[in-house]
C-alpha cells in the first residue's frame, strides 16, 4: 500500500487492527465480516509492526519476543527461531534500548514472526534503514511464508517485493495493480507529483 504522506495508509492499518473506527465500509476476513479488536488480532493469525520501533525497553529482547507467543513449552524455542531468522539471536539477553536502530527494527520483526502469523502487517519497515538493511528486509519479505501487507515509501523495496499494489490518495483508493501497472499509471504519478506525468 503506497500513497503520499497523509493519504491514510497507517489509518487504514489502524482500522484493520481496531485502533480506529471506519466511518464507512466494512472489513472481511476469509470472506466473513470481521470486527477488529487489537487484542484479538493474534487469535486470527494477524501480526503487525509499527512505524518506528514499539518495544518494551524494560524487558530483554527474548522477553519482548516471548510476549507475542501463546502458551506451550516450545515458546522459547519459537522465540529463538524467530530471532535467528532475523539475525539478532545473539542479543537475546540485551535490552532493546541498548541496540542500534536497525537491530531494534529486526527485533520487532522477530516478535511479529514468532507468533507464526498468516497475515503480517508491516508499517514502513524500511524507515530509517540503510541500503544494506533494506536489501535484507526485501529478502525476508520475499521468503517469509505468510501474506504480507506492506505500507512503505521506499519505492525500490515496494516494486521488488509486492505482487499487488494499492495506491491511496486523500483516503481513497486511486489504483490497484501489479508493480508494472502502477509504474505506468497516470493517476498515481499525479497524486505523487501534483500534475500528470
Amino acid at each position, binding site marked *: 500500500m503506497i500513497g503520499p504522506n497523509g493519504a491514510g495508509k497507517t489509518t487504514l492499518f489502524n482500522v484493520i*487492527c481496531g*485502533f480506529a473506527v471506519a466511518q464507512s465500509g466494512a472489513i472481511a476476513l476469509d470472506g466473513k465480516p470481521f470486527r477488529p479488536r*487489537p*487484542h*484479538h*488480532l*493474534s*487469535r486470527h493469525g494477524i*501480526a*503487525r509492526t*509499527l512505524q518506528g520501533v*514499539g*518495544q*518494551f*525497553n*524494560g*524487558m530483554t529482547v527474548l*522477553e519482548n519476543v*516471548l*510476549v*507475542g507467543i*501463546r*502458551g506451550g513449552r516450545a*515458546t522459547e524455542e519459537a522465540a529463538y527461531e524467530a530471532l535467528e531468522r532475523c539475525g539478532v539471536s545473539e542479543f537475546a539477553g540485551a*535490552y532493546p*534500548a541498548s541496540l542500534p536502530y536497525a537491530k531494534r527494527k529486526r527485533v520487532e520483526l522477530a*516478535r511479529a514472526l514468532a*507468533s507464526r502469523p498468516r497475515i503480517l502487517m508491516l508499517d514502513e519497515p524500511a524507515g530509517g534503514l540503510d541500503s544494506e538493511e533494506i536489501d535484507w528486509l526485501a529478502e525476508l519479505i520475499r521468503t517469509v511464508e505468510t501474506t504480507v501487507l506492506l505500507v512503505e515509501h521506499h519505492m525500490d523495496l515496494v516494486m521488488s517485493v509486492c505482487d499487488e499494489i494499492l495506491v491511496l490518495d486523500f483516503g481513497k483508493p486511486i489504483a490497484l495493480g501489479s508493480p508494472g501497472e502502477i509504474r505506468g499509471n497516470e493517476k498515481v504519478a499525479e497524486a505523487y507529483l501534483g500534475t500528470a506525468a
Partner: protein
Amino acid sequence: MDRFLYLTFDGLSRGAIYAAFALALVLIWRAARIVNFAQGAMAVAAAYAGYSVTNATGSYWLGFITAVAGGLLLGAAVERVVMRFVDHSSPLNGVVVALGLVLIIQGVLGMIYGNEFRPAQAPFSRDAFQIGGVALLSRYDLFVFAAVGTVVALLTLLFTRTPTGLRMRAAAFAPDVSRLLGVPVGGMLTLGWALAAAVGSLAGMLVVPTELGLHPNAMDLLFISAFTAAVLGGLDSPVGAVVGGLVVGLLLAYVSGYLGATVAPMAVLILLVVVLLGRPDGLFSKAKARTA
C-alpha cells in the same frame, strides 16, 4: 551496642512491612502510572474484614486469609468499577479519585466499626529472643520476615518466570503494542491492582498488631512511610521498594530509639522531602532507560 542491635533488628522487621506496602504502591504505579493514595484505606478495610472474621470464628488465620483475599477482591473492584473510568489525560485525576476513595472508605469504616482503636491480636509472641543476653528478634518478627520474603519471592517468580507476569509487564510498558500481541491489557491492569491490594492488605495485617490497634486511620503512618520508601527506591523499581522499605524501617527505629517516638513521623517526612529534592527518580529508577 545492645540497644543498637535491638533497634537494627526492630527496624528491619518494620522495614519489611514498609517494603511490602511500598511494593504494592510500585505495582500499581508501574501498571497504571497512578500513586494509589487509597492503598492505606483499602488495606485498613481488608484488615477490618479479617478482624470481623477472627472475632466471629476465633481463628486468627481465617481472619488473615480473609483480609488478604478481601484486599485482592477490593483491588480488582476499585480498578474495574472506579479507576478504569477515570480520565487519565492528567495524572492529577487519578490522584484526586484515589483521595476521594480514602474519604469514602474511612467514612464507611467509621460508621460500621466506630472510631475507637480496636486491639488486634498477633499470631505469635512479640517478646524478643535473648541471644547472648541481647534482645534481638521476636517470633512475630520472624513471621513478618517469612511472610514478606515469601511475597517478594512469589512476585519475582510471577514477573520473571511466567507468561502472565511477562504480559503484565508488557501491558505496563506499552499498552497498544501489547494489545497487538494479544495481551488483554484491561485484564492485566485489573490483576495488577488486585495483587497490589492483596500485598498492601498483607502489610496492613502485619503492622496492626505492632500499633495501637485497628482504626479507620490506622494505616496513615504506614502509607507515608511506605510512600517514602517507594520514592526513595524509585516508583518504577520493585527492588528499590524493598531496599527503600528497609532503609525507612531502620531510620524510624533509630530515630524512635535515640531521639524519641514522637520525632519519628517528622524524620520520615524530612527524608521524603530530601529524596524529592535531591533524587526525585529514586535510587533504583529505570525511568530514563524505559523512555529512551
